[in-house]
């Protein structure tokens, strides 16, 4: 791969005035909320700046130095000091609360989002759809569906940024982080890498293609699939020999993985943790870190044996063994090779 994989994307138009927007497109549910806050902040700043600058200008003119007029010595005023500390503080707290509400919204994906696994690496984006489609530097999503991205990086820190959606999330190596959005408008939008990641940081571009649901169905149907992610995970699971210990009818040498995801797990040292994606990831890559109560620490370390994409498949598979709502609407569920109650597909 050359150093400038995406340079063509940058050379679209001929004249710089051909496109000269001053406001980013709104293409997600959050965009509108954020723009509202922005407008509020702009107005607030405008008012504050006008007030301060006008006052200064008026003083500068009215009290400019003239013969025969001395400055009047005024030492201060406690009331004013209190007023201009408390009032701004009040305004600041409003901004804080508003920003916090949006942030809270941004950080809590709706329960039944479609989960797309994303791996960032120098300098490209790889996406794994639950239905098995894989994409590089391009992500197709339908309008109106909640999409949760489960992101990880293979090397350095990157950042998943779609200005049209007003979302951004740093993508860290060695750990899953999540982000979510619901697209509202069909179109093709920039995907930027926003955290500096080396030579081609500015070339680590992608496109988010938002489609009408029907177009999306066609796209799904026509694009190559590698079997659903969970199914791929299942075959990984078998190839890596996990079933020798993790059986489904009974507790084997290892705990059964049915219903693990999304539920609390009691650990050997008495703590309980919720089994989220990061927990599953850690259980495989570094099993000794958290030992399930009642089990011995015999599970081999898989660090270095599975790469990020395989890891994602395994996680998707283990997750598919749990009953919704912890699972996700978009994810086709597998029938586990055991007796766990099955749930209907989407």
């Amino acid at each position, binding site marked *: 791969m050359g150093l400038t994989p995406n340079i063509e994307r940058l050379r679209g138009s001929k004249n710089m005035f051909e496109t000269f927007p001053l406001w980013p497109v709104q293409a997600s549910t959050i965009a509108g909320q954020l723009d509202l806050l922005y407008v509020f902040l702009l107005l607030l700043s405008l008012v504050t700046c006008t007030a301060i600058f006008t006052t200064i200008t008026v003083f500068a003119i009215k009290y400019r130095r003239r013969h025969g007029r001395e400055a009047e010595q005024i030492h201060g005023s406690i009331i004013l000091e209190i007023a201009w500390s408390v009032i701004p503080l009040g305004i600041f707290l409003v901004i804080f609360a508003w920003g916090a509400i949006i942030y809270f919204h941004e*950080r*809590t994906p709706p329960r039944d989002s479609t989960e797309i696994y994303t791996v960032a690496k120098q300098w490209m984006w790889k996406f794994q759809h639950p239905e098995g489609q894989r994409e590089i530097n391009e992500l197709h999503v339908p309008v109106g569906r909640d999409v949760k991205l489960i992101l990880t990086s293979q090397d350095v820190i990157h950042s998943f940024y779609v200005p049209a959606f007003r979302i951004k999330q740093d993508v860290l190596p060695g750990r899953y982080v999540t982000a979510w959005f619901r697209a509202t408008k069909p179109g093709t939008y920039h995907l930027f890498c926003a955290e500096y990641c080396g030579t081609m940081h500015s070339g680590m571009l992608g496109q988010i293609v938002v489609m009408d649901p029907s177009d999306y169905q066609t796209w799904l149907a026509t694009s190559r699939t590698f079997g659903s992610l969970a199914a791929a995970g299942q075959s990984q699971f078998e190839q890596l020999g996990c079933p020798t210990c993790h059986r489904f009818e009974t507790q084997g040498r290892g705990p059964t993985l049915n219903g693990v995801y999304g539920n609390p797990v009691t650990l050997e040292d008495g703590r309980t*943790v*919720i089994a989220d994606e990061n927990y599953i990831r850690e259980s495989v890559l570094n099993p000794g870190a958290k030992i399930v109560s009642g089990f011995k620490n015999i599970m081999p370390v898989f660090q270095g044996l599975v790469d990020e994409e395989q890891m994602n498949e395994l996680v998707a598979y283990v997750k598919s063994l749990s009953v919704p709502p912890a699972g996700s609407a978009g994810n086709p569920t597998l029938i586990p090779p055991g007796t766990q109650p099955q749930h209907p597909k989407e």
Partner: protein
Amino acid sequence: MAEHEHILSARLYVIIWAVLMCLTVITAGVAFIDLGPFNTVVALVIATFKALLVVLIFMHVKYTSDRLTKTVILSALFWLMLLLGLSLMDYGTRHFV
């Protein structure tokens, strides 16, 4: 300066030294007894006590009339707590939500 400069007795220094030595032995010994999570607590309490003795007596802080010295020590410790406390706060709450 000389008029209010404290010259402490050599005996006091030796006593403090003896206490510090004993505490060192105790802290090493206690580590071998299983106190559960309290092992760490005990070790740190002893260490803090030792440090206090050194600061107050050997470094004469107990005898200085200068409040500034104490302010400097306390604020440095306070800032250390900020660094440790606020960064640990992030680590401690990452698993929430």
